[in-house]
């Protein structure tokens, strides 16, 4: 394990441990409003200051990290699994199935998502708890975010189908699901990993944007997406640099995951 990978591993472990221990580390609940100190700068009482309504930003970052680190990868897992199923299988089968899958993914990608999401919001009840809202949000993201990845995977699987080692495996009598699971899917792993990790920050940012349609994480529950929305309208970072902490955390965690992944890929 090289030094960079060790460092990335430590970062991920520290962030996960801190978010898991939010109940003990946070000076107050994520919803507690210190109304006498809204928009306060960092202090001994509030390590990262407070937000616009006086909620401790450090507490919200810890709880928000817990939610986003649990649910964004879960949504990415759902979307990558769907992509592997549709794109990987279509690429492996080739011919009619590949054309059908590509046509379907193209159609899916061309759908007007804004209107579709508005329709989804209209179908959902208004009175849902914040926790239910966060589950619904990431489930929607997972179920809708597979098409672009499926297109990439279908191309990779198509290339694998015509490769020499697959032909040799076929010539040795291996075919059907066994060939797919033993030879095709393991060789798609790097692409699957890449799609998985790319999806996580995309879903976190999408969750922030979904708030505009009333589909995001409901108040007062924090998430990285809702914390990033705080940066809207921030004219000068120099004035309040502590407000950048959620963004920096997102970058550091995603980079650490990428570093860990790249090493795993090499060993794979």
């Amino acid at each position: 394990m090289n030094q960079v990978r060790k460092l990335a591993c430590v970062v991920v472990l520290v962030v996960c441990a801190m978010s898991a221990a939010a109940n003990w580390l946070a000076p107050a609940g994520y919803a507690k409003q210190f109304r006498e100190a809204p928009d306060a700068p960092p202090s001994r009482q509030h390590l990262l200051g407070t937000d616009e309504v006086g909620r401790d930003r450090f507490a919200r970052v810890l709880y928000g990290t817990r939610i986003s680190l649990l649910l964004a990868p879960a949504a990415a897992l759902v979307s990558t699994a769907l992509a592997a199923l549709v794109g990987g299988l279509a690429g492996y089968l080739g011919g009619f199935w590949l054309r059908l899958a590509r046509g379907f993914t193209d159609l899916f990608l061309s759908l007007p998502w804004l209107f579709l999401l508005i329709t989804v919001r209209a179908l959902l009840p208004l009175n849902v708890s914040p926790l239910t809202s966060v589950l619904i949000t990431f489930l929607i993201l997972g179920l809708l975010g597979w098409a672009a990845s499926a297109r990439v995977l279908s191309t990779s699987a198509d290339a694998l189908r015509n490769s020499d080692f697959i032909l040799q495996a076929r010539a040795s009598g291996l075919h059907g699901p066994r060939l797919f699971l033993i030879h095709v899917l393991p060789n798609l792993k790097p692409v699957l990993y890449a799609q998985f990790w790319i999806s996580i920050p995309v879903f976190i940012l999408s969750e922030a944007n979904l708030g505009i349609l009333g589909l995001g994480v409901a108040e007062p529950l924090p998430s990285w997406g809702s914390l990033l929305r705080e940066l809207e309208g921030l004219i000068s970072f120099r004035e309040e640099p502590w407000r950048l902490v959620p963004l920096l955390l997102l970058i550091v965690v995603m980079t650490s995951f990428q570093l860990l992944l790249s090493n795993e890929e090499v060993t794979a």
Partner: protein
Amino acid sequence: MKINRTGHPAFSRLLFCVALLSLGAAAFAQSGGELRFCLRSEPKTFDPLLVDDDSSLSIRYLTGGVLVRLNRHTQELEPELAESWKVSRDGKQITFKLRSGVAFSDGSPFSSEDVAFTMKRLMEPALHSSTGDAFRSGSGAVTAKIVAPDQIAITFPAPIAGLDRLFDQVAIMSAHSAKKEGAVLGPFMVAEYKAGSTLLLRRNPNYWKRDSQGRRLPYLDSIRLDIQSNRDVEMLRFKRGELDLINVIDSDYFDRLASSSPGLAHDAGASLDSDFMWFNQVASAPIPEYKRAWFRSRNFRRAISEAINRDDLSRVVFNGHAQPAAGPVSPANKFWFNSNLKAQPYRPDAALELLRADGFHLQNGALFDKAGNAVEFSIVTNAGGKPRERMAVMVQEDLSKLGINVNVVTLDFPSLIERISQKFNYEAAMLGFRNVDLDPNGQMNIWLSSAENHAWNPQQKSPDTAWEAEIDRLMRAQASAADPKKRKESFDRVQEIVAEQAPFIYLVNQNALSAVSSAVQGADPGILSPQTFWNADRITLNPTTRASR
């Protein structure tokens, strides 16, 4: 004899004088410079009679000539194109004596014919003018009788309360000019328009008004209006000196500007705008019956109102640039505000008593009704409106102290409007009311129980409650009375009933916040729209800025 190469000495002196005069004329023509600010959306129309959006409203204000003008500072009516006017005792007729020697920007003369033409066009049903709707008092035609070239009498089929004030919104159009709406009587005229980018207004050379020294107004040569919806960009450009005014800014920007450049940020005090919430009381709304019973209970609504800390809302959400609201009329509306009303103080204990009187009870920190249903409801508000989202979160926290579970739902504006005005599929809503009209007649479409905008229970065939029937009666009484005192008495009582019954729970009146560059001279930001440029014909720029543009 030596011949002067430049000619005869007298001729030289003449040339010198002509040159001086030319310089003087040029200096006069460039006297005010170019004022620059932003419109936040594309103007929908340049037809002054069809205006119903903010950008078109600003253009109409700057280009349109009106018979009477509401002074945005004193809130009093002042003569403009009409030297004087008289409203008949029955409130059905208004007679104007017009100013003579006035011409449109294209040179065509102004007379009572133009007023008659404008009124006729304004009242055409096919035009669908929202300005004209304010004059529709009853069935029958509106007649404009030309008494003389400088006198006109306009008669309406039924009395109209506050009739003279309505003419502040009517920009007179030329009956004869081929330029149609291009011929204007206001201080500026549209010179250039690049859709989606810029609108250039130039000084109207025929504008009739002069200052106390007899100098022709406006001082400015032109106004450049950039179409810019992004408020961050607008503020950055203002700070860089590319813009001279920001008509309305929110409290976050205001404080940042006030800390970096204190002289440029202007807080004119409470505006006419109010933010409020209400509960859905529509009988056919798809909400559980027990919740409808809560929402229709006066005690429940009053309890919610008493449990909201308005002082905190003003201080935290608006950084102190808002006032706790007392009712439907802001204290900024000097004449119509009922000064007996005070903003509801924060009294959670009294709120709990009111709830107990209705059979609600606390159990393990949660509130339940007498049937054992946990008290939980959602508040919908528009997404993207940060102050309102913050207010909803604070209300959520305040009500949680009473054991009430509130879910805050932000929706895109079209979906929100569909829910609250068509499908009635919501429980509580939080929105704002942007009031541009001082007169309560402008609120008839809110207070009458049959009105579409009677938000908590619209379009009732007959009033559902006795207090709504009483509001209907009082609003009709004030609308048909000619005596301002009697009108005020009726509307004061309406405000009292609204405070007692709390169909709308008023939260805050936001302050009128604006930004004016130090380059601008003569601006006097106020609370009435247009806040910063209401006296645009008397605004000028300092010599340094003039020279640099």
